[in-house]
């Protein structure tokens, strides 16, 4: 009985996921068959892989609703009740830093950045120098994300309007672009997008919305969102700063 109900609760999200993935299949079919005019290699494998993706997506969303959202929100309520700003900000920093420093996408980008720096003659082209450059960059980005979540949480608590902070950040990016070495700019701009992983986003969103709903005078819609925006903005400034320091 309960197993059956469990399966049924997964069936709906599974169908939703299959619907979500149909556009990708249509795009692939259109370009492969009509534009490139080639057969689809390994059609069975493609359909099987897509089924795995759909199943994974359905499980992930179920897990969000059961685990990540409730824990993010309940921690926000607990911190708001406890009333200790110090511990809340420490938690915010740990969450930003800890989820970013080991992020695989960031490790890949840092490695590429080291290659570029070596190619431009900024650092020696040895494995050791490149490794040190990449590690330094990774740490810089993780620090910047920790800093971003701290500022974002402070903003929710104090009710600062988000646009002034974001516009200030944009100005920072523009000013840094004028001074940063050319070869770091592309990487810096991209680094904003790679820091926020699939597990971090739901947690951080739940935390922000939970904080905004538990603090009097804050509106969860106006004040609850925005943490991710900070986390994608600060790495750009910090990475360009890193490039200037090293160059």
């Amino acid at each position, binding site marked *: 009985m309960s197993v059956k109900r469990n399966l049924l609760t997964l069936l709906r999200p599974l169908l939703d996921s299959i619907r979500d993935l149909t556009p990708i299949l249509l795009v692939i079919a259109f*370009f492969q068959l009509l534009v490139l005019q080639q057969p689809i290699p390994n059609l069975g494998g493609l359909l099987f892989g897509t089924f795995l993706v759909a199943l994974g997506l359905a499980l992930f969303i179920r897990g969000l609703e059961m685990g990540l959202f409730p824990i993010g929100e309940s921690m926000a309520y607990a911190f708001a009740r406890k009333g200790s700003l110090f511990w809340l900000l420490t938690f915010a920093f740990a969450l930003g830093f800890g989820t970013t420093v080991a992020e695989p996408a960031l490790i890949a980008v840092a490695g590429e950045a080291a290659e570029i720096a070596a190619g431009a003659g900024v650092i020696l082209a040895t494995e050791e120098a490149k490794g040190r450059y990449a590690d330094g960059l990774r740490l810089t980005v993780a620090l910047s994300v920790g800093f971003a979540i701290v500022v974002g949480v402070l903003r929710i608590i104090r009710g600062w309007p988000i646009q002034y902070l974001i516009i200030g950040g944009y100005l920072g990016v523009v000013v840094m672009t004028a001074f940063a070495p050319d070869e770091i700019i592309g990487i810096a701009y991209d680094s904003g997008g790679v820091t926020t992983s699939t597990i971090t986003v739901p947690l951080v969103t739940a935390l922000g919305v939970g904080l905004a709903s538990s603090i009097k005078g804050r509106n969860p819609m106006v004040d609850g969102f925005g943490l991710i925006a900070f986390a994608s903005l600060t790495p750009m400034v910090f990475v360009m700063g890193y490039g200037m320091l090293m160059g």
Partner: protein
Amino acid sequence: MELLPRILDTLLATLSDVLPIAAIIFGFQLLVIRRPIARLRQVLIGFLYVVAGLSLFLIGLEEALFPLGRLMAEQLTAPAFIFGSDTAAALAGTVRWDHYLWVYLFAFAIGFSTTVAEPSLIAVAIKAREVSGGAIGVWGLRSAVALGVAVGIALGTFRIVTGTPLHWYIIVGYIVVILQTLFAPRMIVALAYDSGGVTTSTVTVPLVTALGLGLATTVPGRSPLLDGFGLIAFASLFPIMSVMAYAQLSEWRARRNRG
């Protein structure tokens, strides 16, 4: 079978992604908040679902969609396809931006369709619907963001082909965002800024990176190291505009209906 070790590999990688987060959460819960977690069993099962789900998701992508997507990005940017019968242009190595129309269309289509399936965007859309009491629908937000990513990536490939400097596009984009912020409904602003960061994760980044590197490698005069980047930046900037535009449009329609 070679599938089994890969499943184990992905599972381990996902676990090592989740572990630091779990350690921070449970560490603070035990040491600072010092309260038992409500419905601990359900939360733990939820974490298991997240790990299993993400692993299956990644395995499926690696198994089927990414190889084909990369292959198509390569084929669409290959000189043989771009120049086709126009051998004179191919020989002279002259690049005209309109040789690459199929590439822009592919960039648009793949940007849209991968964003619709992006798990972190689904998460934010679910939260936004909950918080707005249904005023912001899951589908409305997801389509607005996907449209923004599609336009952004198409424009980004155009930039790589023409070789114009990345920062001019970004700075102009910032100015547009600031202007829109002045006029957009207040409740959408933070969500719009957030939607820039959620679009680019698991599905979009690998395919888009392959497209950018393929283009920068094959277009004469471009270097993959210097010109291959920037597509992600476009994909994070344009959804901010499209989400604010979506909110402005719905507000304008509501006002017109009332008047």
